[in-house]
C-alpha cells in the first residue's frame, strides 16, 4: 500500500514538475525555435564583439550568433522536438538543440540528426503533400504522431537511417495518414528506402491512435531489423506488385493493436523465383529461429493479390493468441505460409480466433494453388478457434509437406479441395475438428504408412459432399489408420475400383465391406460402415450405445450419401452394438459445438439410420 501511495505521489510530483518547467525560447531566423530549460542554464553571456551569445549548461558552452536570434522569451518547455507541417513549410521547436540534436529542413522535407548520447522524442503533426521526416540517430528515438497527414511523392514518408530502435507512437485520439509516391528518387549512396515507413533499425509501434499507410511505390512498413507492434490501429494499403505491407528482415512480434491490411498487385518473377505480395513477412527469425510471433491484437487482411500471402516467412510462424481474419481473394492466395513450421495456439491457452480463407482459383494447373494454411514443415494446432475455408479448385484448407497435429482448439474447415492434406502424418490429438470438403477429401494423408492418420484424442467429424471416390479419411491404405483414443465420425464416398481408384496403395474396395478393414493396435472399439448411409440436412444424428447413451451428435449442412464411414469413440468396445439415430432437434447441452459436431450432449435420436457392431 505504501509503495502504491509513494508511486502515485512520485508520479504526481513528476507530472507537476514537468508542467511547471519553463524554458528559454529562442526564435531563430531559420524558422526554428530552440529551447532549453531555465533549470539547465548555468549562465548566458556574450563575446567581446557581442556577436555571439554563449549558453553554458552543466559546464558545457554552446554559442549562437546573436544575429540569428530574432526573439527570446520564457515559455513552457516542450518535452519533445515538435515538428508541425504546414503545406510546404514546417515549424520546429527543438528543446534538444543545446543537447546536440539538429533539425534541418528544405520546405517540408525535414531531417533530424542526433549524434549525441541522448535519446530524443519527436512529435510530428500537421499536413503536407510534399514532405517527409528523415532521421539519423546514434541513439534510440521515439516519433509521436499527432494528426500527421504527410505525403512524400518521391520517397519514404518516415525514413530512419538509424540502426537504433525507433518507437513510432500514434497518439490517442489522432488519425495519422502517410502516403508515399509511385516513384522514388534515387537514395543517397549507401542508403535504403524500402517502404513508406522505412527503418534500418528496429521499429516498435505504440499508442492508442490510428495510423494509415498508403504505399503506392511498393512496401508499407519495412525494417531491416525487427518490428514489434504493441498497440495502435494501423491500416496499410499496398497496390504495387510483390509489395510487402509489414516487412522485417529479422522477425515480427505482434502483441496488440489493430492491424488492417489491404493488398492488390501481381507476383513478380525475379532471380529465378516468384516474389509475392505479403501482408506480414519476416525473413531471418529471432534468437529461437521464429520469424513471426503473434500473441495478441486484431489482424485483418484482405488481399486480392495474385499469389498473395497473408502471413508468410521462410521460417517458423507462431500464432499464439489474438484475432486474425485473413481473406485471400486473388488467384493462388495463401493466408498463412511458411517454409518451416506453423504453430497455432498454445498449451493451456484459448487463443487465437483465426479465420483464414481463400476465394481465388489457382494460378496454373501446376502451381499457384490457393491454400488457407500451408507449411513445408509441421503444422500444429494447440488451441484456438479456427475457421478455415476455401472455395475454388485446388483450394486446400491446411496443407503440410511434413505432418499435422491437432492437439487442441476448435477447428472448423470448409474447403473445396482437401480440408487437411499432408505428405506425412495427420494426428488428431485433442482438438475438436469439423471438416467439410465440397470437392475432395476431408482429410488426406499421402504418407501411406502405419499411423499416417491417427486418432488419439479429441473429437473429429469429417466428411465430403463430393461423392465417391472422395472420402472423409483418405489414407491410401485405410488399415494404416491408428486409433488410440478420441471420437471420430467420417462420412463420404468410397475410393472404388477395388484397387483404390488408381490411388497408390488402394483403399476400401468399391463394394467391399468396410468391416473387412482391421486397425492394428486400436485401443477402443471402432467400425467401418460401407453400407450406404443417407444423411439429410436438418437432422441431428446421434451415435449412441444400446442403452441410448449419447456418444456424439453430428449434423450435415446438406444431404449426402456416405458409402464409407468410420465410427470410433473411447466408450465404444469391441463386440458391442451401436446405433445411429436422428432427431430434428438440435442439441442444446453440448459442451463442444464445432460446425455440426456436438460433444458432451445428452441428446438421443429417435429414428434409426443404421446399427453396427464394433470391432
Amino acid at each position, binding site marked *: 500500500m505504501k509503495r502504491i501511495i509513494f508511486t502515485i505521489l512520485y508520479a504526481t510530483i513528476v507530472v507537476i514538475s514537468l508542467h511547471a518547467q519553463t524554458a528559454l525560447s529562442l526564435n531563430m531566423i531559420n524558422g526554428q525555435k530552440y529551447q532549453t530549460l531555465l533549470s539547465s542554464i548555468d*549562465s548566458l553571456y556574450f563575446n567581446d564583439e*557581442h556577436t555571439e551569445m554563449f549558453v553554458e549548461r552543466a559546464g558545457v558552452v554552446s554559442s549562437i550568433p546573436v544575429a*540569428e536570434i530574432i526573439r527570446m522569451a520564457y515559455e513552457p518547455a516542450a518535452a519533445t522536438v515538435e515538428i508541425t507541417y504546414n503545406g510546404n513549410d514546417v515549424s520546429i521547436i527543438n528543446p534538444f538543440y543545446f543537447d546536440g540534436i539538429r533539425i534541418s529542413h528544405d520546405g517540408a522535407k525535414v531531417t533530424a540528426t542526433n549524434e549525441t548520447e541522448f535519446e530524443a522524442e519527436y512529435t510530428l503533426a500537421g499536413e503536407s503533400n510534399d514532405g517527409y521526416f528523415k532521421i539519423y540517430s546514434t541513439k534510440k528515438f521515439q516519433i509521436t504522431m499527432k494528426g500527421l497527414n504527410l505525403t512524400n511523392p518521391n520517397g519514404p514518408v518516415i525514413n530512419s537511417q538509424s540502426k537504433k530502435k525507433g518507437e513510432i507512437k500514434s497518439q490517442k485520439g489522432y488519425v495519422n495518414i502517410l502516403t508515399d509516391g509511385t516513384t522514388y528518387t534515387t537514395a543517397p549512396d549507401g542508403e535504403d528506402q524500402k517502404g513508406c515507413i522505412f527503418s534500418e533499425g528496429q521499429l516498435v509501434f505504440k499508442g492508442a491512435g490510428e495510423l494509415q499507410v498508403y504505399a503506392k511505390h511498393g512496401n508499407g512498413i519495412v525494417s531491416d531489423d525487427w518490428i514489434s507492434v504493441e498497440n495502435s490501429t494501423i491500416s496499410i494499403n499496398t497496390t504495387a506488385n510483390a509489395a510487402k505491407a509489414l516487412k522485417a528482415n529479422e522477425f515480427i512480434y505482434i502483441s496488440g493493436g489493430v492491424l488492417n491490411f489491404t493488398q492488390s498487385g501481381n507476383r513478380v518473377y525475379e532471380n529465378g523465383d516468384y516474389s509475392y505480395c505479403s501482408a506480414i513477412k519476416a525473413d531471418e527469425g529471432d534468437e529461437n529461429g521464429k520469424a513471426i510471433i503473434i500473441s495478441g491484437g486484431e489482424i485483418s487482411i484482405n488481399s486480392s493479390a495474385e499469389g498473395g500471402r497473408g502471413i508468410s516467412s521462410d521460417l517458423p510462424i507462431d500464432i499464439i493468441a489474438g484475432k486474425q481474419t485473413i481473406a485471400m481473394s486473388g488467384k493462388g492466395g495463401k493466408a498463412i505460409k511458411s517454409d518451416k513450421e506453423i504453430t497455432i495456439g498454445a498449451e493451456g491457452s484459448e487463443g487465437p480466433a483465426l479465420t483464414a480463407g481463400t476465394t481465388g482459383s489457382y494460378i496454373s494447373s501446376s502451381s499457384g494453388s490457393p491454400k488457407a494454411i500451408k507449411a513445408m514443415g509441421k503444422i500444429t494446432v494447440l488451441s484456438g478457434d479456427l475457421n478455415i475455408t476455401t472455395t475454388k479448385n485446388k483450394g486446400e484448407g491446411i496443407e503440410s509437406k511434413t505432418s499435422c497435429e491437432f492437439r487442441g482448439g476448435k477447428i472448423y474447415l470448409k474447403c473445396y479441395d482437401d480440408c487437411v492434406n499432408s505428405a506425412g502424418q495427420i494426428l488428431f490429438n485433442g482438438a475438436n475438428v469439423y471438416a467439410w470438403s465440397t470437392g475432395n477429401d476431408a482429410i488426406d494423408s499421402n504418407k501411406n504408412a502405419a499411423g499416417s492418420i491417427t486418432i488419439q484424442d479429441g473429437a473429429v467429424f469429417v466428411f465430403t459432399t463430393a461423392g465417391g471416390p472422395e472420402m472423409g479419411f483418405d489414407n491410401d491404405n485405410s488399415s494404416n489408420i491408428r486409433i488410440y483414443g478420441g471420437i471420430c465420425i467420417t462420412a463420404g464416398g468410397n475410393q472404388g475400383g477395388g484397387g483404390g481408384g488408381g490411388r497408390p496403395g488402394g483403399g476400401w474396395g468399391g463394394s467391399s465391406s468396410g468391416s473387412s478393414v482391421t486397425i492394428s493396435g486400436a485401443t477402443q472399439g471402432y467400425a467401418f460402415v460401407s453400407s450406404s448411409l443417407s444423411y439429410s440436412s436438418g437432422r441431428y444424428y446421434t451415435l449412441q450405445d444400446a442403452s441410448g447413451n449419447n456418444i456424439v451428435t453430428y449434423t450435415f449442412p446438406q444431404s449426402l450419401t456416405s458409402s464409407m464411414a468410420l465410427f470410433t469413440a473411447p466408450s465404444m468396445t469391441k463386440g458391442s452394438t451401436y446405433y445411429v439415430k436422428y432427431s430434428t432437434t438440435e442439441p442444446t447441452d453440448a459442451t463442444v459445438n464445432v460446425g455440426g459436431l456436438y460433444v458432451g450432449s445428452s441428446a438421443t435420436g429417435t429414428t434409426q439410420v443404421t446399427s453396427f457392431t464394433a470391432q
Partner: protein
Amino acid sequence: MRKLLSIITSIAFAMSCYADGDIPSLNITTADGTTVIALKDIISIKYTGEEMLVTKNSGSTSFSINDVSEMLFGTTTETEEDTAIDSIEGASINTVLYDLNGRIVFKGTKHQLQSVPQGIYLMKNGHKTIKVVL
C-alpha cells in the same frame, strides 16, 4: 515569405548593430516597459528559481521571468543607467532609493529625484532593482 522577411529583418538588425554610434543591446520587455541593457555592460545572465539576474559591470538587475514578455537584441546609444532611469521615470509608480547600506534615502517621483544628493544608490521600481549613479 515570412521567413524571408525575418531574414531581411535580422540582417538589417545585424547591420544596425554595427552602425556608428550604436551599441548592441538586449531589450527586455515587461509589463512595466522595456529595459535596454547594452551587451557590453552584461557580464552574465543567470537564473535562480523564477528570477533572471543580469549581472553587469555596474551592479545587477533582476527580473521575474513571469514578467518578461520578450527579449530582443537591438541597439542603444544610451548608458544603461539613463535607460533604466528613463524607464522608471516613465512608469507611474513610485521609486525607492537605497544607499549602499540598504537604508531608504528617497521615496518619490521623477522630479523629486533631482533633490537627492549625488552618489551611488540602489534604485527599486516595481520588481526591478538596479544600481545607479546620480
